[in-house]
């Protein structure tokens, strides 16, 4: 009796703890999957997103011809990066806009680079020839650059100013009008 009363009025907190553990024992198996999902949740452990106003993420790739190409290659002048794929219909539909930007690049003092993602060298080479793409095209075989720019898939176009800061980004197909606005923001159209 003495002991029981001590248990009752002494370490009540311990019994409460035991009860709480007991309750948790019942609940935990039910909620465990949700906890594990949360650990796999959006952007867990990922770097902050690429955004307008942030520095463009550096990349080092090879062109279709095998030459090294990097973000630094274009430092000092505005740059348009177009992520595309040969199998991507919207990419094909927007490509005339990108080609036009590229055609005016030399005169306008800016550069255009295409980064082919989730695609093969032969298919991209064939497409580049068929579409007569004259700007440098890099192959992002591992998807590392695509992931660094945090895009779900092509097409996506980033507009970077001469200081290497992202000034605009169009996720999805781009129109000529939208491109003009983006170019102004990147300081490529004066």
């Amino acid at each position, binding site marked *: 009796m003495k002991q029981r009363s*001590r248990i009752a009025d002494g370490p009540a907190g*311990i019994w409460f703890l035991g009860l709480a553990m007991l309750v948790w024992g019942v609940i935990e198996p039910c909620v465990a999957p949700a906890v594990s*999902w949360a650990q796999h949740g959006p952007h867990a452990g990922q770097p902050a997103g690429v955004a307008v106003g942030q520095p463009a993420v550096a990349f080092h790739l090879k062109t279709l011809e095998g030459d090294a190409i990097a973000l630094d290659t274009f430092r000092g002048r505005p740059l348009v990066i177009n992520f595309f794929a040969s199998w991507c*219909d919207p990419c094909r539909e927007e490509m005339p806009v990108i080609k036009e930007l590229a055609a005016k690049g030399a005169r306008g003092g800016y550069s255009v680079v295409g980064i082919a993602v989730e695609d*093969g060298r*032969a298919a991209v080479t064939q497409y580049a020839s*068929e579409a007569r793409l004259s700007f440098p095209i890099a192959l992002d*075989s591992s998807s590392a650059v695509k992931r660094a720019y945090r895009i779900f898939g092509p097409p996506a176009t980033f507009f970077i100013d001469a200081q290497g800061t992202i000034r605009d980004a169009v996720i999805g197909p781009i129109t000529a009008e939208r491109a003009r606005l983006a170019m102004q923001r990147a300081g490529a159209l004066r």
Partner: protein
Amino acid sequence: MMICPERRRKGRTISLAAITGCLALAGVIALAVPLDWASAFGDLAFGPELRIGQADRNPSSPFLRIAPNGRLYAAWTESDPNAPSAPKVTADPSHKKHWMITFDMRVVLLASSADGGVVWTAPRRVNSATEAVQGEENEPRIAFTPDGKAFVVWSVPSEKGDKSRANVRFAMEEGRGGFTPSRTLNEIKDTARFPILERSPDNTFLTAWIDRRVDSPASRAVYMSRIGPNGQEVSPSYKVAEDICDCCRLELAFTDKGRTVFLVNRQVTAEQIRNHVLRKSTDGGVTFGAPVTISDDGWQTVCPHSGPAMALDHRGYIHVTWFTMGRSLAEAGVYYSVSRDGGRSFAPRRLVHANTAPEILHTRLAVGSDGTVHLAWDNLDGAGKAQVFVRSMASDGTTFSPIQQISRARENARRPVLALSDRELHVAWTESEGETSWVVMRTAPLKK
């Protein structure tokens, strides 16, 4: 250090209470064990990685299926050894650049295994021509006659190499170890891709593809063709669905002795909302009813090359999995739902795995004879590499297993496919590093 008797008694009481609490907890956990997936159903213990295909020919885009005789079949694509393997680049003064074009010529290969994928037959080439067989979401598909003869469909780009203006090819085993000459199923040139093929319980075959014969920049249509039991008679293709996403794989399933056919696809509304839908045919696939939305995800963006997967169980439940970006980045992930009323409605979607980063994911499922649903998909791991994950759901429709990562790719493991027998679950996928790829398969025995 001295401890007074009262404190010692108190300490004993505390210890006793703590031990009691722990024992109670242990008891509860023991009682709760039937709720736990691992104890009730068993973790899937996957065996070692097996590689399929010839390593120096960049195997990719596998498809797995169990034949009626129980053999495991794999189809995949490889570089054609008779075709040039790499494009050459030459300068051209008339343009800034000029490329000497070489297509990525590939072959469709088929092999089978009687022991669950340990020992395979020598691969047999399916396609007769040298052509640029497509892969990824366009992987070759196999179906079997009741006596085990393989029918195969695949996609090839247009003569100009345009993958979005493609053609659907078909060949079948001719009974002497080879395949019939490839034949094109779409009557209108350069309009068909993403073919699928399933055998109906009436022993005819239905093939379906995404069709762009009306070449508007808007959405596409689904066309079907019925192939006779011996593979010779092929019906003219006919339209069964409109306003569908132009690059997201389809799935077909049969019930009711083939009279009822289900079709799932990603639908595109006039507002460019891209939800997944199910269509039902009650006349064996001749006509289909209005689409039923599986989940109002509200995804409003361009084509991801990621389609839904569907399977029916013995109760007639329709299980579906798909990837969506939803209405915001936070919603993006692989989802699952089930229809328990023959496709009239679907349960609220359940998240299978959230996107760990912006990335298009690809998901498949298979349903066992006991109603257990097995899902496989790709997602990025903590290091930003694409890996293959699996999890299962008990036939109660609520108990999910933990997520298992079954690939250890150094760069990318993508687009898993499944095959399920009563004894084993097989998962295959394409793994790649740089411009090199290979096909990996792992097998897990199923706990009885």
